């Protein structure tokens, strides 16, 4: 079972991101369960959302305490909430930022994990470019598809179109695709760096 935890702030579509991920998994014929950290959080407040993906029915409904994947939509949370809590040592981390982990001041934390599973993507900028709005949730899913290979970009696009329609949908699809390519590129470079 794959357990994904999303961190962001109210209004950034964190819950929607988890839901889209579950839809993407569903379209790939898998079982998925997405749910928010139910609360009455208002815009700006820290928000957590979860998504479980598996090949059979998912029964447990406890919050994801030991995630396999962390998707951090808002890097400003990094020093406010213990976002890395319970993350598996071989877990994935995707951070919405242009700055490096060291610049973000999480270099030492990150060093505990497998670096090829850690990356960041300028999701907000990409979203601005394609949608004119700083909504990074769908974009990050594109990035996650590239990072983990656990879902396809097609599935992500399908999920986006399931949730949105018209220009918003297409803008998100395009943005997700760009993020996908960006992350793929990064991983490639990372791989080269390894082999070098």
């Amino acid at each position, binding site marked *: 079972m794959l357990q994904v935890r999303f961190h962001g702030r109210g209004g950034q579509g964190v819950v929607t991101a988890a839901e889209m991920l*579950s*839809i993407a998994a569903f379209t790939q014929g898998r079982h998925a369960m*997405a749910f928010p950290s*139910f609360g009455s959080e208002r815009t700006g407040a820290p928000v957590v959302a979860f998504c479980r993906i598996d090949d059979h029915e998912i*029964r*447990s409904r*406890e919050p994801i305490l030991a995630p396999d994947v962390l998707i951090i939509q808002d890097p400003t949370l990094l020093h406010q909430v213990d976002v890395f809590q319970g993350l598996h040592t071989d877990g994935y981390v995707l951070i919405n930022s242009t700055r490096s982990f060291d610049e973000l001041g999480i270099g030492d934390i990150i060093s505990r994990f497998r670096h090829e599973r850690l990356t960041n993507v300028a999701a907000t900028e990409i979203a601005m470019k394609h949608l004119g709005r700083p909504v990074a949730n769908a974009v990050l899913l594109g990035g996650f598809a590239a990072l983990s290979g656990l879902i396809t970009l097609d599935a992500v696009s399908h999920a986006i179109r399931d949730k949105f329609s018209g220009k918003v949908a297409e803008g998100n699809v395009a943005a997700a695709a760009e993020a996908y390519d960006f992350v793929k590129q990064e991983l490639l470079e990372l791989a080269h760096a390894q082999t070098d």
Partner: protein
Amino acid sequence: MLKQIEGSRAVAEAVALCRPEVICAYPISPQTHIVEGLGELVKSGALTPCEFINVESEFAAMSVAIGASAAGARSYTATASQGLLFMAEAIYNASGLGLPIVMTVANRAIGAPINIWNDHSDSMSQRDCGWIQLFAENNQEALDLHIQAFKLGEELSMPVMVCMDGFILTHAYERIDMPTQQQVDAFLPPYEPRQVLDPADPVSIGAMVGPEAFMEVRYLAHAKQTLALERIPQIAGEFAQAFGRESGGLVRAYRCDDAETIVVALGSVIGTLKDTVDELRNDGLKIGVLSIRSFRPFPLTAVRDLLQGAKRVVVLEKSFSVGLGGVVSSNVRVALSGLQLHGYTVIAGLGGRAITKASLAATLREAVADKLQPLTFMDLDWRIVNRQLEREAATRRSGPIAENLLRDVGAVASKVH
């Protein structure tokens, strides 16, 4: 048709397939997405003919449903928590008048302190109101139960509450199988009211009944629920026939056959429990889960039959009778009267406190070792509690408990669970 949608949306679509004629909506978390969905379906013309009425309170919501049902319309509403309490008077009235209204309760705690998260205090507070109360384990069952609820309620001319855990189910995206309109139409006949307000046959409904007949009326309500004990499994059977899946019924046993320890629970926690039980089984513990689908009528016989083979019973519940202990466990005890079993009551998940597999496993191991307190509060923060108790011992007037606790806990939202 398989879909990956939110639980509330699934229920909304299922209710729409039942062709309700009058829907009364008053918003309260976490029920909102259900009535929002239905409102959209009516406004878009997808659900027609149907009157969608935005009322001014839950009290009005149930009252409008009463009027509509008495006038022969299939009526539906949804609520939760404080809303359920606010309509309590009308709830008793609807069952007293024998009006087959179906209502979703998106289970949520009751304040003060105000708390929007999930537990079963609301439904349990109305356990004696004369309604049938069905509990859903997951969203598939939640939507299936609504289809069965209309059939059941209208056959017996009594109202039905479908209880689903707020947020945990209402806000969860998961895979569900949505039946087709044809399937539902074939399963659920049009509403044929027992009694109806019609100038062609002008009856007076809602007479004042004095001591000479009141007890009889009450007994007859009980007799009806006893009848429901037979019909609920039958209807679940018919449903399985028509839709090809198990849903509802009175109780459901999971790995109970050779179980020495059986955990009794209801609602969405069953899923987590099953996973926990599987793990404990792997460690060789003979443990199973008994989930109660129908809390009213309470299936005394079915529960007794399934539990009497076990050594111990752990009732895990999201409700709490202050000053006594478990609500569900008190009911289970009635079923077990005369049996010499170890009985434990575990209060868990009040006000949305996350119920984790880890905590469950630990608690159940203690139970299996018979080290568990008869009344246990799972994951209770004794540090806070004891501090407050000391404060109270020190001074009579220590201020409102909730305030002090918050002071000790610090900000609530920063915690993941």
